[in-house]
């Protein structure tokens, strides 16, 4: 991928991935899901999850699985609010970028500049 993913966008993607599982999901699966859309190293996800957990966007609980404890992540109310904020922001951002890249010569104030001459 030629474009870099900022921390906020990665947060948004992780929140979206976690939100798909109502009962919560675990670190390995989150990483694989994120890697499905983004080429990132597996080592990147832990700090993101930890930070989202500290910011009360994610809650953590342990559940027995195959004879051991597995840590699950679940969206909190704050996390859900944050995700909808990210969704709205992404809508605005991505449509602007798409507009420019598609060659509609649009200025920031929305006035069509037209071509040269």
């Amino acid at each position, binding site marked *: 991928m030629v474009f870099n*993913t900022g*921390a906020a966008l990665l947060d948004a993607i992780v929140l979206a991935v976690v939100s798909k599982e109502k009962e919560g999901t675990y670190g390995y699966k989150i990483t694989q899901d994120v890697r499905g859309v983004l080429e990132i190293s597996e080592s990147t996800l832990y700090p993101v999850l930890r930070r989202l957990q500290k910011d009360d966007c994610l809650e953590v609980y342990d559940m027995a699985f195959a004879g*051991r404890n597995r840590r699950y992540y679940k969206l909190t109310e704050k996390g859900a609010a944050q995700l909808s904020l990210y969704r709205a922001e992404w809508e605005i951002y991505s449509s602007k970028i798409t507009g420019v890249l598609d060659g509609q010569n649009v200025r920031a104030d929305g006035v069509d500049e037209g071509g040269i001459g």
Partner: protein
Amino acid sequence: MDRAQFMRELEELLADISETERQDALEFYNNYFDDAGIENEASVIRDLGSPEKVAAIIKADLKDPEKGYEYGEYTEHGYEDARAKETEQMPEKYGEGSGKEKRFFRKGNQAALILAVILLVFISPFVKGAVGGILSLAVGILLLPFWLIVGLGIGAVALLIGGFAAIVAGIGLCVVMTGTGVMTIGIGCLMIALAILMVLGLISIAIRIVPKWFRKMTDFFNRLLYRKRGEAVK
């Protein structure tokens, strides 16, 4: 490197963060290996990179979670953060701090140099007695502008006070002996004028000479400290 070795190294590398943070991270990666399964162990280790890299990322985020948003970037090469160089991540001992104290005498540490200069000023009389001769002379010459400024400053203040006292005394004397009184006032005025001249001289020294002198001193100590460091490294 297998999973056990990876986890052991990671634990060592995280020795200088808090117990809760360390346990949380280790638990996460233990979980991660469990979920990946033995068949994926090698590929997980390969993708995680080195324990150093994993530790660097964890610490970079702990150090400054707010700034992490500004400095860190997730690129196609993974998380990239100019602040977290992998080589700096290995703590020398368990439970050691972030190693800030070691950086005390690094190049460009003005505070350390200023401290050294102040210390020299204070110990210079003792040095004179103990070592005597050349060293104290060198220190004396080095600190000449400093003494000049102090001397001029004290002189100016003394002259100013004396001048005003003379004027006041002269006004009093005028009533009794007019001639002597006027002369005393005149002397007072001269003293004040001299004080003003000294202050002006002092300012010109402070502006012109001191920065130059200070730069030379800084260079000197820098070289001294840097050479020492260089030798220590070898």
